[in-house]
């Protein structure tokens, strides 16, 4: 942006300044080598010289305009704050419903459902592999009845609900639709998201069921069905969050997520869907990690890269197809079990980076999450943290307040460049599915995770309370304990539903689903019918397991 002669003048000035710096360094050396989480060196100061060919309109544009670097809406938080959406769920549907209503009363603006592991892996609570796991990391949902209780007295036309569900996403989405129907809420009015991002399950999160090809079919079926029937529903939340939690760098998080996104777009287009039909309902989910400016740059770069990919690579025409809308969660892996109150500060800074990065919704972690599921008190503090960011400190008054910072713009450019390098590499391996099958992403993540741990162990990476400023006496905090009897109660309820429902009808809808799975038809109508007959999640997934087979994990370490 600066005229050439101005830049060369500046360059001369910088050289004389660097001389002074060298003199200072001889007396007072710097504390350490400064680098980003992604490993790249950080300079002492950034100037226009770090942005030599930088063009404002090309790189940033205006908020709500291509390439959306500054934000996806023209007014961003001046119009409406992000959705404050705390991920919650534990025990039975009754308990979780109580927590949801509490959070809504406290000013939370959207729901985010955590399911227990048997639900996420498509097993009923009475399956042998469910022992010890029922209601532990989330709520147990076996049949439509559980979903009815979960959403009891919550008006589905007024809240949006995000569900962290992947392999059996179609089933849980169908249950949610069935509840809406019972509440008399038209499908056009329900808003929410299913995670439905199976590729990152193979790489980082682990709750896969079916092999990749069959999983991709289910995902494309959802895109097509939801596009016609529930137009305001986000059909996928393509997630970097778990890739980062598994140990990747910021650059890898973005690169692997966008590569996975490319794979979904290609699969849907191959199935004959028009890009502008489904792309507007794609959404994303990222991690807000500890390096503040690197994270802000990552969010900004994500929008710019995606806009260009959608426009240039896939020929999208609608603006909405090009906008990367995302949810953010603060970094669970950055929380410490030691001095847990300190986590409140970590979460606040991470939340701030997400807001300065232009997130559409946010989950702030609770301080006790390295120890247990959040207690009510800890969950409330976490929600209050985002409310402080949103209402008190002025960071929402103008759009993209860090835009134009030499450092942030240089970082944004650098992240973009590194991510594009990775995407090219993954394209050359045959795309995301092939790269995952070859263990490429897994190995890259594993190497970064190991490097991170070595840095912590050597003290090179400071973690307050762990390798610096540890204090022996820890204040005890009250932790949430899931009642061990939850499992028995849930199994009991499932039994009762099985006794009460029309068995002949259930057998019939499952047989229809089986035939559907053997054909190429869209499976959603069959699944919707099955859940309405109170066929259980495990029964529905059981039929699909029978036809599709199960994924066998490749162990990469």
């Amino acid at each position: 942006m600066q005229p050439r002669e101005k830049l060369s003048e500046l360059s001369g000035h910088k050289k004389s300044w660097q001389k002074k710096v060298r003199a200072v360094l001889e007396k007072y050396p710097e504390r350490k080598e400064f680098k980003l989480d992604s490993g790249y060196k950080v300079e002492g100061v950034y100037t226009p010289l770090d942005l030599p060919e930088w063009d404002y309109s090309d790189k940033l544009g205006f908020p709500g305009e291509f390439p959306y670097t500054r934000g996806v809406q023209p007014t961003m938080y001046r119009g409406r704050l992000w959705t404050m959406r705390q991920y919650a769920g534990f025990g039975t549907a009754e308990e979780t419903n109580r927590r949801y209503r509490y959070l809504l009363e406290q000013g939370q603006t959207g729901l985010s459902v955590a399911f227990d592991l048997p639900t996420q892996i498509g097993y009923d609570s009475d399956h042998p592999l469910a022992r010890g796991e029922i209601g532990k990391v989330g709520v147990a949902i076996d049949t439509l009845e559980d979903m009815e209780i979960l959403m009891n007295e919550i008006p589905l036309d007024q809240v949006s609900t995000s569900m962290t569900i992947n392999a059996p996403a179609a089933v849980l989405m169908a249950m949610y639709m069935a509840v809406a129907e019972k509440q008399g809420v038209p499908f056009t009015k329900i808003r929410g998201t299913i995670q439905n991002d199976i590729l990152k399950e193979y790489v980082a999160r682990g709750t896969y069921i079916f092999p990749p090809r069959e999983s991709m079919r289910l995902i494309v079926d959802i895109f097509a069905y939801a596009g016609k029937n529930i137009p305001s529903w986000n059909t996928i939340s393509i997630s970097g969050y778990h890739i980062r939690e598994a140990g990747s760098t910021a650059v890898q998080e973005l690169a692997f997520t966008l590569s996975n996104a490319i794979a979904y777009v290609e699969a849907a287009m191959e199935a004959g869907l028009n890009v502008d039909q489904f792309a507007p309902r794609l959404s994303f989910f990222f991690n807000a990690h500890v390096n503040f400016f690197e994270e802000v740059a990552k969010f900004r770069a994500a929008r710019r890269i995606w806009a260009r990919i959608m426009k240039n690579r896939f020929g999208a025409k609608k603006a909405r197809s090009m906008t990367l809308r995302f949810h953010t969660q603060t970094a669970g892996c950055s929380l410490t079990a030691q001095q847990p109150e300190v986590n409140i500060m970590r979460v606040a800074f991470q939340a701030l980076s997400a807001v300065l990065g232009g997130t559409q919704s946010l989950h702030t972690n609770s301080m006790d999450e390295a120890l247990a599921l959040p207690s009510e008190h800890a969950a409330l503090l976490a929600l209050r943290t985002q409310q402080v960011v949103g209402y008190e400190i002025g960071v929402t008054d103008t759009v993209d307040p860090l835009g134009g910072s030499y450092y942030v713009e240089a970082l944004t450019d650098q992240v973009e460049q590194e991510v594009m390098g990775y995407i090219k590499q993954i394209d050359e391996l045959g795309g995301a599915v092939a790269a995952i099958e070859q263990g490429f992403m897994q190995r890259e993540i594993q190497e970064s995770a190991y490097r991170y741990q070595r840095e912590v162990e050597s003290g090179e990476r400071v973690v307050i309370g762990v390798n610096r400023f540890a204090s022996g006496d820890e204040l005890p905090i009250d932790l949430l304990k899931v009642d061990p009897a939850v499992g028995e109660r849930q199994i009991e309820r499932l039994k009762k539903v099985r006794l009460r429902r029309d068995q002949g009808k259930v057998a019939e809808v499952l047989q229809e689903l089986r035939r559907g799975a053997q054909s190429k038809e869209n499976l959603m109508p069959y699944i919707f019918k099955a859940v309405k007959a109170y066929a259980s999640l495990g029964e529905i997934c059981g039929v699909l397991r029978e036809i599709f087979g199960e994924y066998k994990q490749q162990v990469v370490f």
Partner: protein
Amino acid sequence: MNGHPIRVLVGKVGLDGHDRGAKVVAQAFRDAGMEVIYTGLRQTPEQIVEAALQEDVQVIGISILSGAHMQLLPLVVDLLRKQEGEDILVVAGGVIPKDDIPYLKEAGIAEVFTPGAPIKDIIEFLQCRFAQN
């Protein structure tokens, strides 16, 4: 140490997919000269014990972050006893509340390493145990 490397099975019990810790620990064990077998995700206690006996390991290191530790960890020790594998040392790591640790130790888990535990402590623990024996 009489020249024999320690043989360890690192395993994930339960349904959770958090394998970052297990894999990082497995890699650190290997770099410390141990022989390491890693099972991958979603192992049942039965599968872990069978693999440990088959691989003739001295230690089983179990990672669990699902909250099912109180049910699943004692099962591993029980199964080992039933199959004459009681010499195999069982240690565990993961999100395990302090209050649960006494019960787990009583059930026969030799040590529980919680978030923030340096890997070198885990390695030293194993090296001490097997230097004495």
